[in-house]
């Protein structure tokens, strides 16, 4: 919304942005990142979703409208921006404890101790990339800051990464700046977090865990690379809790995972990065933002056919309001992830199933009644206003015809647009029959992948 207002002001037209009470700080800091810290907002008291219509109308008439008029007819005060250090500037000196205290005070740290980013430590990281220190890989919102090899190295040092991880970190910088990923949405209220997946020989070379406890901290590569991502979001993109990061709850950053390449080769399945056009043997990092997830315990069966109903049910169980990314807020951008332990993938493959066949079988079974779909869209939430039925979306050409094959409210409809929208990875304890399903945050963290250059 503020990005639209900013474009309006750039066109020489005054704007006023309607902002609920809890989002004023976010609006202020987002506006600063857009280069217009004084972009005017008009307060809407409380949160609109819980207000009776009479209360909402009174609030708008008495509070919002006067602010709108003032915003459009009186020029706000001049904007100011605080002075900032130069890109390679020494900003502090002192002991380990003093440096950490300063970084906490400046909100450059996530609360855990950081490794002090000395010039020498940063240079050691830069020795592991083909890029110059000031190479700009992209610009990221909301702060509109440059993703450079230097800024990547500094945050990699702080996160506890090893210098040789640098090619991975560079590729992640590219992912963060990829417009398709939509990093600007990383502060939205569901508080989704990014999962990083590493594919290719580099994963084993750098010691990434792909087996038991793959989502657990305790492995330097997985843990520090996951932490690096969050520090980059904080320091370069500019996401700070209570300001631009409006996660209602949030959680700690996810550790990065690697796929079990040995098992993938044995069963002749493409890697996770194959979903983005890469081949087995390519060094690739992939990112996607997931709202949550859950374990699928003790999948029983000796054939793929015996397992697929439970797995499909698990994908359905993890999916609720996220359906607005299949129809409503965006069209067919929902990409849930099913992470299979190797023994499950091996058993399914031994039944003669390719990954594509598994995706098709899951697509055919992971279905819900149309009436339930519609409740998530516009009855239990108001994320898609207008109380439209799926039939209405199809008639408006905003949904595929398969969502309205009849008008029976109990007809079963898919939860994603296509079979290959159900992403599948292979990792975890090789000999335990568990899986994990991640629900996905749609185009607000759409999956992207970049090659690791070294």
């Amino acid at each position, binding site marked *: 919304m*503020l990005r639209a207002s900013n474009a309006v002001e750039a066109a020489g037209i005054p704007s006023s942005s309607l902002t609920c009470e809890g989002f004023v700080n976010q609006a202020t800091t987002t506006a600063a990142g857009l280069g217009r810290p004084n972009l005017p907002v008009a307060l809407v008291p409380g949160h609109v979703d819980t207000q009776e219509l009479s209360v909402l109308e009174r609030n708008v008439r008495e509070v919002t409208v006067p602010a709108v008029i003032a915003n459009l007819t009186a020029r706000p005060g001049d904007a100011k921006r605080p002075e900032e250090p130069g890109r390679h500037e020494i900003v502090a*000196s002192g002991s380990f404890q003093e440096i950490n205290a300063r970084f906490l005070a400046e909100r450059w740290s996530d609360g855990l101790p950081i490794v002090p980013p*000395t010039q020498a430590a940063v240079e050691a990281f830069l020795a592991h990339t083909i890029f110059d220190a000031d190479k700009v890989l992209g610009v990221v919102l909301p702060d509109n800051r440059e993703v450079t090899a230097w800024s990547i190295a500094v945050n990699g040092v*702080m996160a506890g990464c090893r210098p040789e991880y640098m090619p991975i970190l560079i590729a992640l910088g590219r992912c963060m700046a990829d417009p398709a990923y939509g990093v600007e949405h990383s502060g939205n209220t569901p508080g989704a977090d990014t999962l990083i997946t590493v594919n290719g020989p580099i994963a084993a070379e750098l010691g990434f865990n792909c087996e038991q406890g793959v989502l657990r901290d305790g492995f330097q590569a997985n843990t520090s690379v996951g932490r690096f991502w969050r520090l980059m979001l904080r320091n370069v993109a500019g996401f700070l809790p209570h300001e631009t990061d409006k996660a209602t709850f949030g959680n700690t950053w996810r550790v990065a995972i690697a796929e079990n390449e040995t098992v993938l080769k044995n069963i002749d399945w493409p890697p996770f990065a194959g979903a983005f056009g890469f081949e087995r043997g390519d060094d690739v990092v992939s990112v996607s933002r997931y709202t949550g997830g859950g374990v699928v315990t003790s999948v029983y069966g000796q054939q793929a056919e015996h397992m697929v109903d439970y797995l499909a049910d698990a994908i359905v169980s993890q999916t609720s309001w996220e359906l607005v990314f299949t129809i409503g807020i965006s069209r067919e951008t929902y990409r849930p992830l099913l992470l299979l332990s190797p023994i499950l993938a091996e058993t399914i493959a031994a039944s003669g199933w390719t990954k594509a066949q598994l995706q098709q079988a899951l697509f055919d079974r992971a279905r819900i009644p149309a009436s339930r779909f519609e409740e998530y869209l516009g009855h239990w939430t108001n994320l898609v206003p207008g109380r439209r039925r799926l039939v209405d979306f199809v008639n408006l050409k905003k949904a595929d015809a398969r969502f309205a094959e009849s008008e029976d409210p109990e007809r079963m409809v898919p939860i994603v647009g296509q079979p290959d929208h159900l992403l599948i990875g292979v990792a975890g304890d090789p000999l335990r029959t568990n899986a994990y399903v991640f629900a996905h945050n749609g185009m607000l963290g759409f999956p992207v992948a970049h090659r690791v250059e070294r």
Partner: protein
Amino acid sequence: MTDAYEVVWPRSPQSVELQDLAYRPDSLDGRTVAFLWDYMFRGDEIFPVIAEELKARFPTVEIINFDQFGTTHGDGEAELVTALPQLLRELGVDAVVSGMAC
């Protein structure tokens, strides 16, 4: 490890300079105000109230409703934001109210 560290800044420069806000008129009378909506958080109930109040205070104000533009969030955001300057100029828009951040 040494006892003293000299450390560098973990951020990077902002890529945009400070920008001026647009000129503001003294009154909305005789002006055209457009509504932009992200199609979330009850804008369909809020914008009619704002329109009513603006018309009461500025009898000659013209309102262009949000349905003339499409959504400023989701699939449509990038395309609409890019097209907005020209679209607003073609419609003779003098001011914009944009919602909803909630």
